[in-house]
C-alpha cells in the first residue's frame, strides 16, 4: 500500500469514528490505533487482576459470613473483568501469553492504587467505596468507546461495579455507626485511601500525554481533571453522611463554580509508585509471577489430558 493509500484509509477511518460507528477487530485500522488499544485494554485487564490481591488479603478474615460472601463475589467479579478485557485485547492480534509476559516482566503497567497495603478491615470498605467509585467514573464513558469489543466488555463491567461500590459503602456505614474504635478505623482508612484514589484518575491534564488522540478515538471522553472533579463532588457528601472527615484542609465548596476546591495532590508520590517504588509493588508482582509459575504444571497436565482424550476419541471413531 502506498503512503497516499494509507492516508486515505486513515481519513475514512477517522470519519467513521466521528460518525459514532464502531470499529470491529477485522476492520482495517491504523497501526497506532491497534497499539494504543492493546496498551490501554491490557493495562486495564492487568489492573483488574492485580486489583484482586489487596482485597483477597481479607477474605479469610471477613467479620461475618455475609461480608465474606460479598467480598468473595466482588473479588471473583474482578477476575471476570480481567478476563473480559484480556479477551477483548486478544481480538487485536496479541496473545494472552504475551500479555502476561508484559505484566510479569514489568513492561506493562497497572493501576498504581493496588500498590498500597490493606492493613485493616476498614480498607475493604474504603476500597469498595472510593477505588471502585473512581473506577466507575473512569469506566462509564468507555461503554461508548469506538472499539467494539472494548465497549462491550465495559458495558458488562459497569453493570457489575455498582454492587462493588455499595458493599464497600455499607462496610463504612456499619463501622461509622459502631463503636468509637470502629469509627476511628473507618476514618483511618479514608485518610490513607483518599489521596491515592484522587491520583487513580490520572495525572493532571497539563502532564497527560495521550489525551488528544484518545479523545478522538473515544478512549477518553472527559479529561483526567474533569473526572477527578466529578469524583470529589460526588464523594464529599457521602463522607459527610458517614460523619467522616476528608483529609484535605483545603477542601471547600465553591459557590461560584458549584464545585469543591481541593488541595494540592502529591504527584511525586504518584510517580514514585508508578515507577515501582510504592509500598507493595514488589509484593504484588511476586504474587502474580508465583501464581503463574506455580500453576504451570496444572496447565500442562490439563493440556496433556485434553490431548489424550482427543486421541482416544479419534481412535474410537476410526
Amino acid at each position, binding site marked *: 500500500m502506498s503512503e497516499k493509500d494509507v492516508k486515505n484509509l486513515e481519513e475514512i477511518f477517522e470519519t467513521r469514528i466521528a460518525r459514532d460507528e464502531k470499529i470491529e477487530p477485522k476492520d482495517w485500522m491504523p497501526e497506532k490505533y491497534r497499539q494504543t488499544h492493546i496498551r490501554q485494554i491490557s493495562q486495564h485487564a492487568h489492573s483488574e487482576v492485580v486489583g484482586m490481591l489487596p482485597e483477597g488479603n481479607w477474605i479469610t478474615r471477613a467479620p461475618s459470613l455475609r461480608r465474606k460472601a460479598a467480598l468473595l463475589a466482588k473479588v471473583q467479579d474482578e477476575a471476570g473483568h480481567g*478476563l473480559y478485557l484480556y*479477551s477483548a485485547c486478544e481480538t487485536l492480534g496479541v496473545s494472552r501469553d504475551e500479555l502476561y509476559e508484559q505484566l510479569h516482566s514489568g513492561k506493562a503497567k497497572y493501576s498504581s492504587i493496588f500498590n498500597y497495603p490493606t492493613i485493616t478491615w476498614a480498607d475493604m470498605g474504603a476500597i469498595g467505596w472510593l477505588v471502585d467509585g473512581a473506577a466507575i467514573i473512569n469506566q462509564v464513558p468507555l461503554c461508548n468507546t469506538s472499539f467494539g*469489543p472494548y465497549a462491550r*466488555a465495559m458495558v458488562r463491567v459497569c453493570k457489575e461495579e455498582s454492587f462493588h461500590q455499595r458493599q464497600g459503602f455499607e462496610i463504612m456505614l456499619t463501622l461509622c455507626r459502631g463503636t468509637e474504635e470502629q469509627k476511628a478505623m473507618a476514618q483511618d482508612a479514608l485518610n490513607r485511601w483518599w489521596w491515592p484514589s484522587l491520583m487513580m484518575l490520572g495525572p493532571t491534564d497539563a502532564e497527560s500525554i495521550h489525551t488528544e488522540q484518545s479523545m478522538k478515538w473515544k478512549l477518553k471522553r472527559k479529561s483526567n481533571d474533569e473526572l477527578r472533579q466529578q469524583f470529589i463532588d460526588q464523594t464529599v457528601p457521602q463522607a459527610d453522611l458517614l460523619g467522616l472527615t476528608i483529609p484535605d484542609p483545603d477542601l471547600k465548596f465553591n459557590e461560584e463554580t458549584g464545585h469543591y476546591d481541593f488541595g494540592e495532590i502529591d504527584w511525586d508520590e504518584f510517580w514514585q509508585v508508578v515507577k515501582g517504588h510504592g509500598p507493595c509493588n514488589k509484593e504484588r508482582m511476586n504474587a502474580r509471577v508465583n501464581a503463574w509459575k506455580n500453576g504451570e504444571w496444572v496447565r500442562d497436565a*490439563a493440556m496433556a*489430558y*485434553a490431548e489424550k482424550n482427543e486421541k482416544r476419541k479419534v481412535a474410537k471413531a476410526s
Partner: protein
Amino acid sequence: MENTKKNWPLWEIFVRSKNGLEHRHFGSLHAADAEMALENARDVYTRRNEGVSIWVVESKHITASNPADNGELFEPAQDKVYRHPTFYDLPDEVKHM
C-alpha cells in the same frame, strides 16, 4: 528441556439468556478442552443468571467474512427495494396489509 509449550486454546462463548431467545456471542476464554471451556464460561459469563444454555466453539473453527469483501457481499441488497413491503403502492382503503 522441551520447548514446544502448548497454551490452552481460545474458545468463543455463546449464551442463551432464556428459552425463546437465540444464543448470542458473549466473548471468549482459554480452556484445555470443551468441557473446561463450558465450566469456565459458566463462571466468567453467567455469574448473575445471564444464561440457561451455553455453547462453546474453539475459535479456530470459526470462518469469518472479511470486511474488505463487504461491498461484494452486502451491497447487492441495497438496490433491491422491491424486497420491502413499502415498495408496493396500495390504495388507502386496503387496511391491515
